[in-house]
């Protein structure tokens, strides 16, 4: 009986520790000293965030060039820089941004129940999703493209994919497009796992957004190349709570200002710009 009691006590202590641990995930640093907080109309999301002095942003942690997390635990990439631009305009310093990993399963639920304030995660704007969340932007126009081994010359465009096995990620829009195209989708969980079948010849190509493919090609210099022109339009937008019109309008304003004053280009050059050329950003779509 005694060891049972001890075991139970050990389990209880461990679970208390675990519970304590789970409340200490947000950094408890004192708010950084006074850049005077910009003022917003009362009752708007911007005012609430600026007053709280912190913001929760959902981004990808496994997307080359756009959202990656390295061993220092800090996300880096173009989406991350866009998030930082928005936070700066709210008067929130970088270290008070809480980054959460946005996977396709949790993006919409987290926005809907307020666990994240915005999602900047190679989030393709989609009319079906507009019923559930609102989109600011687009802030970048990607397109679906094709990755092949560098010494391969048989695949040059999407028509060469028909009837052949092509790798993509489960549940993503590019995977659905491949099925529509008539290729045979071979689905993995991460893009990194897609490269192995390509190497061993079990798929003829990997297909997803061109920026992700460019990132993969850059990580494996000389082994792969991106071919063909993008054959779809993937506008990346910023997801926020449905029907928050004031917040959406404000984000669109900030984006346009960032285009004009060079901070967008600076964000691009310091991250994705190392591999991809700069392109003129698209105008935000202020839909009704």
């Amino acid at each position, binding site marked *: 009986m005694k060891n049972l009691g001890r075991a139970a006590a050990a389990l209880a202590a*461990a679970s208390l520790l675990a519970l304590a641990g789970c409340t200490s995930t947000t950094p408890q640093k004192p708010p950084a000293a006074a850049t005077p907080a910009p003022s917003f109309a009362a009752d708007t999301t911007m005012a609430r965030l600026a007053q709280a002095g912190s913001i929760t942003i959902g981004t990808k942690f496994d997307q080359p060039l756009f959202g990656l997390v390295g061993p220092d635990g800090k996300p880096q990439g173009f989406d991350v820089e866009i998030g930082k631009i928005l936070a700066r305009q709210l008067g929130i310093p970088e270290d008070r941004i809480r980054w959460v990993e946005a996977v396709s*399963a949790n993006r919409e639920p987290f926005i809907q129940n307020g666990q994240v304030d915005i999602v900047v995660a190679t989030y393709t704007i989609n009319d079906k999703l507009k019923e559930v969340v609102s989109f600011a932007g687009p802030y970048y126009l990607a397109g679906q493209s094709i990755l092949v081994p*560098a*010494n391969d010359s048989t695949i040059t465009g999407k028509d060469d994919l028909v009837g052949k096995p092509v790798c993509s990620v489960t549940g993503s829009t590019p995977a659905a497009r491949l099925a529509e195209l008539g290729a045979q989708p071979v689905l993995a969980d991460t893009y*990194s796992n897609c*490269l192995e079948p390509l190497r061993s010849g079990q798929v003829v190509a990997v297909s997803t957004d061109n920026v992700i493919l460019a990132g993969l090609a850059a990580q*494996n210099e000389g*082994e792969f190349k991106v071919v063909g022109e993008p054959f779809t339009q993937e506008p990346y937008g910023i997801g926020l709570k449905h029907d928050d019109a004031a917040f959406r309008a404000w984000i669109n304003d900030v984006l346009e200002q960032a285009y004009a004053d060079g901070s967008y280009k600076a964000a691009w050059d310091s991250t994705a710009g190392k591999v991809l050329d700069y392109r003129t950003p698209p105008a935000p779509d202020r839909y009704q």
Partner: protein
Amino acid sequence: MSGPAVLFDAPGPRARALSRALSAVTIVLLAAGLCLAFLALNAPKESGGITLPGMFDASRWDIVWDPQLWSFVLGQGVLGTLRAALLAAALAVALGVLLALLRSASSPWLRLPTAVLIEFFRGMPVLLMMLFILLVFSTGQYWAVVSALAVYNGALIGEALRAGLRSLPRGQREAALSLGMRSLQSKLLVEFPQAFRQMLPVIVAQLVVLLKDTSLGYIVGYPELLRVTMNNLASFYGNRYLFPLWLVTLVLYLAINLALSWLARRLARHR
């Protein structure tokens, strides 16, 4: 019963020599197999027109010497796994006791709905349950992982405890009742502790499975060991480091699980 003394004769000198010879052959075959595997993995590969270094080439393993990598893997990954696993284990055991109590209650109003509930929880894949809890109850990633694991393993532990209860000699319950204890008291004070002790290997095995199943938290993006290494770091460092990361993750999981099993066996033996 599966001890050697019963199923086959104690080996005589010829049998011992044969056994030694076979052991030597087995060891040689294993060593040869491992060497071949090592050489095959270490051979440079042609791909896309360039030559890739072998799997054990130093260029693939340079990140392992980075202490920041280890603080990230251990601090975020292993800690994430342990946090979820420990709380889920405690909740699963508690839930298992509750379900076993309900399932062996005398009133059919308690027994039958509990039976249906247990069958439902046992039959759902943990992946699906985590996704479900996240979407339907709008909890965070941590609570989706913990509750899914607790509910699933709680049902299994409940069934194990029920089997343990049934295998107890009936005299235990009769003695308790004849002392004037009520049914519930008899269960809690006399029968459950014995059932627990008897099913402890099964329960510990299930808790090891629980710890491994925290790796299914990737579906909701929970930062635990598998996601941190095979997803985040593999994407950060690139596909070249996939094999070293895989090997490191394998070793870490083996270490944690073997330590857990050993700890549980120590606790069980300490009476």
